[in-house]
């Protein structure tokens, strides 16, 4: 569906992309189901039968994602228009922000986040006055470059007119005041929060292009060092990194770049597609830059749209020559290792490629959600079909929103040598099962590009040297899963009810 920037609130992922949070099968059968519908005859067309469980949501929400993204913009102040409890995640947002700034050599500052701290009275009489006061206070006390407002379930239900307050106070405070509609109840997956803030910056910060910057490539990133500029500078291009760790100027000029790309379409397919639709900024339709196959195509596509094909070939040759010897050594040590992945969909796709290049067998994966399509780019073509072609099938390939019991059952079934997890919760469980577990936290760039294969290979070796830690842990903990239940899971019984 076309992106509609006129509406203040973004359409949810379920609406746009058919997102689901429960599914069991293999990577190959998921590809078939996405294209044609699943075997129970739901008919495809971006609809797929979803496994329904008693715990339909066990992790964050869209509001948390928005709070995370909004606080990572330099010079920004976030106002959480909500009861104070919605701001419980600020400490980890701050950790991520500080890490990102250190890695990029920026002057380190803390996130600045306020809360309207709504109470009973505000729920009854409306919360716009505390919001107005918070905006004025934020402007006066922090002199921000931009003020983001995240909405919450409570303010969504009482229908506070956040847009009007933002518009009125913007004139007064003289910087963009950006309302982001991210009520947690609207979508069952937190990734709608990425779309919500991208929608908001497109409406309120991205400027009408004043010129075309032919050497500028938008790259949509998360926290971590700038691994993109050193690569692109070699072919005479500049990377415009957005949103984590970026300046407001980086967001303003998104409309002027030659093209947009990312390391993760789960994160950014909305922003890329919208910039192409609204301003003609080419949204690159390459597989994500993981493994030799992905990185090569990714760079070649950038070369193609900027007329740097020859320079890109030289760069690819140079990078291959640089990393191949070390990768060969790592491969010799890691060949045949059986690894299970528990992470978001974009990262899982990336890791399947990286591990494939290292000779590691991916013996299963649990993803936190599944988008049947992406905005703009053809998902089948650039991710799943690409992976199947280069690295083969992954089985089991499960979608479960960070559900520990399903994770435990899958690990019991697969019995991997090692588990890689991105985002807490699950790594504690696999460690306690005695399986060496590599957390892929903090630095989102670790597996990126050519160097990413070396990074991951070395990290794997380091984790494998700590097997005993996990074994000792397992010997001293008791988990709530009965042997009979775990045994029943290995016999292929459905974990949960499947619903159309």
């Amino acid at each position: 569906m076309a992106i509609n920037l006129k509406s203040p609130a973004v359409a949810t992922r379920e609406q746009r992309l058919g997102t689901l949070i429960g599914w069991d099968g293999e990577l190959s059968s998921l590809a078939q189901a996405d294209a044609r519908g699943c075997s129970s005859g739901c008919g495809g067309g971006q609809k797929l039968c979803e496994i329904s469980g008693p715990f339909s949501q066990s992790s964050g929400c869209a509001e948390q994602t928005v709070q995370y993204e909004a606080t990572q913009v330099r010079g920004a102040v976030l106002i959480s228009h909500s009861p104070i409890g919605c701001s419980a995640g600020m400490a980890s947002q701050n950790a991520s922000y500080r890490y990102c700034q250190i890695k990029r050599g920026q002057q380190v500052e803390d996130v600045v986040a306020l809360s309207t701290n709504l109470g009973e009275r505000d729920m009854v009489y409306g919360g716009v006055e505390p919001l107005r006061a918070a905006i004025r206070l934020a402007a006066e006390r922090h002199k921000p470059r931009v003020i983001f407002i995240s909405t919450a379930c409570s303010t969504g239900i009482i229908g506070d007119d956040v847009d009007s307050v933002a518009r009125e106070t913007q004139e007064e405070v003289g910087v963009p005041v950006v309302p982001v509609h991210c009520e947690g109840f609207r979508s069952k997956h937190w990734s709608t929060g990425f779309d919500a803030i991208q929608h908001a910056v497109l409406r309120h910060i991205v400027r009408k292009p004043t010129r075309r910057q032919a050497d500028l490539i938008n790259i949509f990133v998360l926290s971590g060092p700038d691994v993109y500029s050193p690569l692109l500078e070699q072919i005479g291009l500049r990377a415009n990194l957005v949103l984590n760790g970026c300046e407001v100027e980086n967001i303003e000029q998104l409309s002027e770049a030659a093209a947009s790309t990312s390391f993760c379409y789960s994160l950014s397919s909305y922003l890329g597609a919208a910039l192409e639709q609204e301003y003609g900024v080419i949204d690159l339709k390459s597989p994500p830059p993981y493994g030799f196959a992905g990185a090569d195509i990714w760079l070649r596509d950038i070369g193609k749209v900027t007329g740097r094909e020859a320079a890109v070939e030289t760069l690819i040759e140079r990078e291959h020559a640089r990393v191949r010897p070390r990768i060969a050594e790592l491969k010799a040590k890691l060949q045949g290792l059986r690894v299970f992945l528990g992470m978001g969909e974009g990262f899982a796709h990336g890791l399947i490629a990286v591990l494939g290049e290292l000779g590691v067998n991916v013996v299963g994966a649990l993803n936190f959600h599944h988008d049947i399509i992406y905005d703009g780019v053809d998902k089948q073509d650039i991710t799943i079909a690409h992976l199947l072609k280069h690295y083969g099938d992954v089985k089991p390939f499960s979608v479960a929103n960070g559900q520990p019991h399903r994770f435990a059952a899958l690990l019991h079934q697969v019995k991997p040598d090692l588990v890689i997890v991105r985002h807490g919760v699950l790594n504690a469980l696999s460690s306690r099962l005695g399986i060496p577990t590599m957390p892929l936290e903090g630095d989102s760039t670790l597996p990126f590009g050519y160097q990413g294969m070396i990074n991951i290979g070395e990290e794997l070796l380091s984790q494998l040297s700590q097997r005993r830690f996990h074994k000792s842990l397992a010997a001293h903990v008791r988990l709530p899963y009965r042997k009979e239940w775990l045994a029943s899971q290995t016999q292929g019984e459905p974990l949960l009810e499947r619903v159309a």
Partner: protein
Amino acid sequence: MAKKTKQIAIYGKGGIGKSTTTSNISAALVEAGYKVMQFGCDPKADSTNTLRGGEYIPSVLELLHADSRVDAHDAIFEGFGGVYCVEAGGPQPGVGCAGRGIISAVQLLKQQDIFEELDLDFVIFDVLGDVVCGGFAVPIREGIAEHVFTISSSDFMAIYAANNLFRGIQTYSKKGGALLGGVIANSINADYQREIIDDFVDRTATQVIEYVPRSVTVTQSELSGRTTIEAAPHSEQAKLYRRLAARIANHTQSKTPTPLDQYQLRAWSAAWADRLIAAEQRREHEAKVA
């Protein structure tokens, strides 16, 4: 480039004849060749019944309840003369939040750019009752309706609801929200009823768009599941609805009303009560003398 769709919201106390009048306006507008959508914003989801032969249609919220991925086209049904009928729907009485229901339903249609796609001349929101919470104010907030009309009889409670709506309009008027087109005076059969409404609009700096008398034709049409325009096209009442529709179609300048505060409203209604009692006593006295 699509033409600009004129978006109108009609508010009024429950049972005042809001859906009846709105449906007749919609019917008259399609009859005059316009492309019209009627959007019922009431959990009862019965705003458009008389445009569809008395038939209920699935509401946006019912569809959203069944499947989180809703194509807005599935919530649009054609009625009399090709009028597009949509019902926001909402929870059963006593549970949930009907105001949020309106927000969700309106958002869904806006996100899918339906008004532009259907190339509509008019979208008419038929909204329940007073502006009781933020959700019911959605149609008068920026970017939805431009003109608001309120339906009121001369009954004090109906005027109270109209005055409440004016307060909502006043709140949002400074923020680019909708402004007031005027009052559709319903069930006006006696002179004193007309005087009450006239006095109210004078004090609140607005106008009466049309005086609509109570009519048995309307009741008969409703009972047959049709609007008066459809069931009794040659009746006086149908002519009156056509005139009302034409006035609304030609209406361009809406204003910010000056609602009465609760003390002024009470004093005003008490003064009218005294006047009516005095008139009644005078009549009784004259009857005795005669």
